[in-house]
């Protein structure tokens, strides 16, 4: 009798263990998937989007933690109470929230970009069926200082972050990074089960970008542009500042722009960066290109003279000077100084139609510059066979050709840097952890000789010193440049009241440290570039000379 009890206990225990073994065999060998769905949690770890800094490592676009609010409709007990409480904080509208509670769905995203404070307030309700996912949201310490340049981070069809326009769009793949993954067996309270699966693959964060843009120059230039647009009552405007020796962009701003934090409130036309996407007729700022080509081709010499008697007739059209005054004997330098259309037609004729076209190609007009920003337009240069004599005549003074501001800057830089046509760029370094990739200036081809470059620089300096208008120039500095006023073509004819006023200039003449292009569209106080864009350029130049610590000559 004494042995029966222990034996009975032993048999009961044996049966109990056998049952456990059978059950474990069923769960782990015969039907392993069911255990995984219950305990194995697989979560995606979002990578942090790469940051964007200016050339002095000042942040322009960084990340801040944010949360995606989601609901699990099947777990919601009292829908109307649920909606009322959430709406008190989110204020999305009760009807809108109620429509999201679809009991056939397990998971519905409600709102992204929630901050910590709102999350905390929602958690205090202790609502069932409410959850949060960790996310990142772009944060711009300098607000919209460089909105067009940076672009913005929006969503794709899957609701994932995607960069649009500017640097965000062009470098989206570099900035995005790769998500990590965590596989972990968890109990009902979310604690890891130590003997279960515990795997973690860390995310690879996006690469950081270091721009060529100087935050301080960008800020100064943007402020000046804002003032200029208000003062001259222009519709819009752009200022591009670059180092002509490397073509790294130091500032690039166009107004009106958009608010980076609330980009979704703006229509699409605000997102286009006019500096790279909009075409305009350059007007007289184009004259130095034809003059340089003629000098390079030895069709004319700087001290050659032309007898400017009066208007000229080309293909049934009459071409006049801007003020309908004629100088008589005028030198090539004088043609640039006085911005003579008639004189430029003569220079174009001396150069020859074939050569004009070939130099326009060399300067890169009609082709995208390849700048590392999303949304660049090609410009427009029609095929050579489609050109009439009047086209060659008008192109010599910058009408009848459409270019983008960035094409102008690239081609103009080649005139003053010894003839090197460079590729413009805004990102100078891409950094990923310990790896860094530097992006250097790239020469594409030669446009003119170094000797011609020196000659055209002198002519442009003379245009500023001896031109028709006296500007408030910084004293003691040698500054060169050219004004431009182009009428805007509307429905097949030019409207004389609507102009694009521009000025392209550089300093110091001997060794240019910066080149700036100022464009004002439809200024109302005066249609002329010399009375609007030029004074604005000199204001910008004054600030840049101080900022770059350039000594008077």
């Amino acid at each position, binding site marked *: 009798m004494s042995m029966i009890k222990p034996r009975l206990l032993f048999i009961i225990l044996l049966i109990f263990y056998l049952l456990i073994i059978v059950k474990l065999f069923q769960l782990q060998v015969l039907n392993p998937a069911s255990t995984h769905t219950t305990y194995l949690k697989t979560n995606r770890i979002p990578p942090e989007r790469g940051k964007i800094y200016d050339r002095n490592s000042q942040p322009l676009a*960084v*990340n*801040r933690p944010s949360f995606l609010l989601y609901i699990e409709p099947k777990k919601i007990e009292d829908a109307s109470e649920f909606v009322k409480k959430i709406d008190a904080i989110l204020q999305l509208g009760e009807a809108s929230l109620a429509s999201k509670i679809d009991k056939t769905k397990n998971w519905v995203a409600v709102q992204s970009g929630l901050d910590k404070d709102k999350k905390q307030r929602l958690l205090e309700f202790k609502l069932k069926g409410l959850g949060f996912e960790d996310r990142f949201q772009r944060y711009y310490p*300098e607000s919209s*200082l460089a909105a067009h340049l940076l672009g913005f981070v929006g969503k794709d069809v899957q609701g994932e972050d995607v960069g649009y326009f500017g640097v965000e769009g062009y470098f989206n793949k570099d900035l995005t990074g790769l998500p990590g993954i965590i596989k972990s067996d968890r109990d009902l309270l979310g604690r890891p089960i130590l003997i279960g699966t515990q795997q973690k693959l860390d995310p690879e964060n996006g690469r950081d970008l270091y721009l060529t843009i100087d935050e301080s120059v960008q800020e100064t230039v943007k402020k000046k542009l804002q003032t200029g647009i208000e003062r001259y009552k222009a519709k819009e405007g752009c200022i591009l500042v670059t180092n002509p020796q490397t073509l790294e962009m130091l500032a690039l701003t166009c107004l009106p722009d958009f608010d980076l934090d609330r980009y979704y409130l703006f229509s699409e036309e605000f997102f286009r960066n006019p500096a790279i996407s909009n075409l305009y007729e350059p007007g007289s700022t184009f004259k130095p290109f034809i003059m340089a080509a003629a000098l390079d081709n030895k069709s004319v010499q700087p001290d050659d003279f032309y007898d400017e008697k009066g208007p000229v007739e080309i293909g049934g059209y009459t071409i006049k000077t801007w003020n309908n005054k004629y100088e008589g004997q005028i030198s090539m330098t004088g043609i640039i100084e006085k911005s003579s259309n008639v004189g430029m037609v003569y220079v174009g004729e001396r150069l020859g139609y074939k050569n004009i076209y070939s130099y326009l190609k060399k300067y890169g007009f009609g082709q995208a510059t390849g700048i590392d920003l999303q949304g660049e337009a090609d410009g427009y240069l029609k095929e050579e066979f489609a050109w009439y004599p009047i086209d060659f005549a008008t192109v010599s003074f910058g009408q009848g050709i459409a270019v983008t501001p960035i094409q102008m800057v690239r081609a103009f830089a080649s005139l003053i840097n010894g003839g090197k046509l460079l590729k413009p760029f805004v990102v100078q370094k891409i950094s990923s952890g310990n790896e860094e990739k530097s992006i250097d200036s790239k020469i594409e081809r030669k446009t003119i000789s170094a000797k011609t470059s020196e000659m055209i620089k002198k002519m442009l300096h003379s245009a500023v010193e001896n031109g028709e208008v006296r500007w408030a120039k910084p004293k*003691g500095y040698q500054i060169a440049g050219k004004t431009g006023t182009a009428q805007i073509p509307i429905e097949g004819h030019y409207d004389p009241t609507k102009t694009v006023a521009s000025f392209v200039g550089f300093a110091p003449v001997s060794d240019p440290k910066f080149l700036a292009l100022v464009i004002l569209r439809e200024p109302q106080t005066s249609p002329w570039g010399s009375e609007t864009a030029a004074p604005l350029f000199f204001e910008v130049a004054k600030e840049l000379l101080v900022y770059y610590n350039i000594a*008077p000559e």
Partner: protein
Amino acid sequence: MKSLTKYFIWFIFAILLTGNVFIFLNSIKLSDEINHFEKETKNLHQENLNIENKIYEVDSLQYAASMASELDFTQKAEPVYLENLKYAKSQ
């Protein structure tokens, strides 16, 4: 002898039982700690980002401009010497 073996088996059984309970409780405690530190790490990371962003904000030109306006520092830094070179040339 038999009773000695019996006691020995009970003794082993008790040790195994205690050991199992001890390991089980410890694993729960450890899991709790892992869970706690995971949350803590995440919070610290988020807090770190927030502080980093605050630093960026106070270091920004926009903030400097707003402070200048708030404190009425309206005097602009004019490049005076460009207009009056006597200052630049003074010894």
